[in-house]
């Protein structure tokens, strides 16, 4: 049975490649689950913001795409070993990664969000109102860099390794406010009673891009072209509205 299926899929693949000889074959890797970006719905189908965006991008590129599931640790090694051709799994563009892979233009950037107790009523952008407050951040994040550069000396900064420890201290009133990746704050702080968003979300860093092998410059060009088109013609916005209540577009 298994052999038959392999034979059938081979035949199908040959048919498919024969029928669309000019089409590109692309394998795109995701690390699931990472809601709402990529996860399996109750039927076991791969879905999410990046999955939908990848599908739209493939259509735009007229490419024949296959979605692959890959654990995060093996993402870049798997790409370099040609197990797949693109990574669209919330990989932030950083100089360290850019040494090894080729990034497209960013296609989303989640903002940093300010969260605090209901009683918190200072304006987070007003340095005199924030004076003496204690702010929690996750060590090494773009939010940490922002607070360190903009608010050192005004507020007391406490750095945490995990978001869970930080939220515990926010609940315990050791922190007045936390500045954290918006989806993280949404899932950890806003799910608790007595806490709210206390300031305008801020976009920091370059954002998330499609990662490719360095030699695949032609693919990168097509990917960038397709992403630009999707952002302009409203497809991107439609997909974004399906998954987010806030703006992640860059």
């Amino acid at each position: 049975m298994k052999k038959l299926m392999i034979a059938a899929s081979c035949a199908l693949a040959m048919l498919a490649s024969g029928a669309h000889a000019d089409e590109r074959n692309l394998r795109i890797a995701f690390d699931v689950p990472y809601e709402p970006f990529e996860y399996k719905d109750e039927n076991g189908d791969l879905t999410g913001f990046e999955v939908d965006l990848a599908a739209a991008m493939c259509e735009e590129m007229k490419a024949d795409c296959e979605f692959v599931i890959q654990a995060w640790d093996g993402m870049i090694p798997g790409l370099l070993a040609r197990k797949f051709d693109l990574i669209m799994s919330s990989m932030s563009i950083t100089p360290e990664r850019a040494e090894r892979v080729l990034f497209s233009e960013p296609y989303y950037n989640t903002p940093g969000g300010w969260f605090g107790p209901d009683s918190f009523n200072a304006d987070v952008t007003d340095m005199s109102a924030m004076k003496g407050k204690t702010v929690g951040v996750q060590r090494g994040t773009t939010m940490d860099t922002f607070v360190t550069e903009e608010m050192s000396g005004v507020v007391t900064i406490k750095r945490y390794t995990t978001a869970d420890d930080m939220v515990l201290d926010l609940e315990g009133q050791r922190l007045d406010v936390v500045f954290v990746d918006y989806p993280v704050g949404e899932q950890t702080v806003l799910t608790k009673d007595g806490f709210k968003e206390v300031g305008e979300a801020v976009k920091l860093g370059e954002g998330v891009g499609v990662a490719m092998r360095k030699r695949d410059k032609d693919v990168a060009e097509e990917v960038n072209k397709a992403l630009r088109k999707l952002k302009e013609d409203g497809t991107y916005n439609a997909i974004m509205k399906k998954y987010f209540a806030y703006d992640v577009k860059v």
Partner: protein
Amino acid sequence: MPPDFIAAWLNRNEIFTAMTIMEYWDGMVTTVQLVFLCLIIGLAFAVPLAILRTVKNPFVSGPVWLYTYIFRGTPLLIQLYIIYYGVAQIPGIQETFWWEIFREPFYPALLAFTLNTCAYTTEIIRGAIISTPHGEIEAAKAYGMNWFMRMRRIVLPSAARRAVQAYSNEVIFMLHSSAIASVVTIVDLTGAARNIYSRFYAPFDAFIFVALCYMVLTFILVFVFRKIENHLLRHQRPAGS
């Protein structure tokens, strides 16, 4: 040539600026404060607890045994988590004056470290007390000394001599254990290293430097304890040296 090599390395280093050196220095001050205070308080409580632990009445020695058993039987990290996060979960604590103390991470960490080192020190001193040679105690009794005087003049001074080497180990272990203070947001030496590492993504530079700082502190402690041992154990030195 080593000097050229060091000069070249310093020239392209972005990490060891005046600002980061100050961060390390502040971290060092915090580490020294934390360790020094917990050792002093721990030792002050350990001596009477060790004496109680040697008392024959189980209602007196039992609770001390239980305390040392619990604090030596669980990891310091867990004790710190329980005191730091646990206290904040007590309903209404934020409205009491205790919160002034427990709001900052320094005092919960000091409390956890003190309870931990006190438990170990109690056992070290107790071991030294019960190994007091029987003849010394009998001689003291023969001189008509009461219990208090025996303790003060005979048992504790000779126990101190036997305990000092084991205690110097405990002090060095405590210095190294204090590195976990950084998990509750205290910027001690390790906390400073973690912050600097995450800013520059340079683990070797950030952590090797901090390891050297701990080594310097350790060498100072070893030196101090060698002086104390020489003083306390001078009767054991070969004659004429």
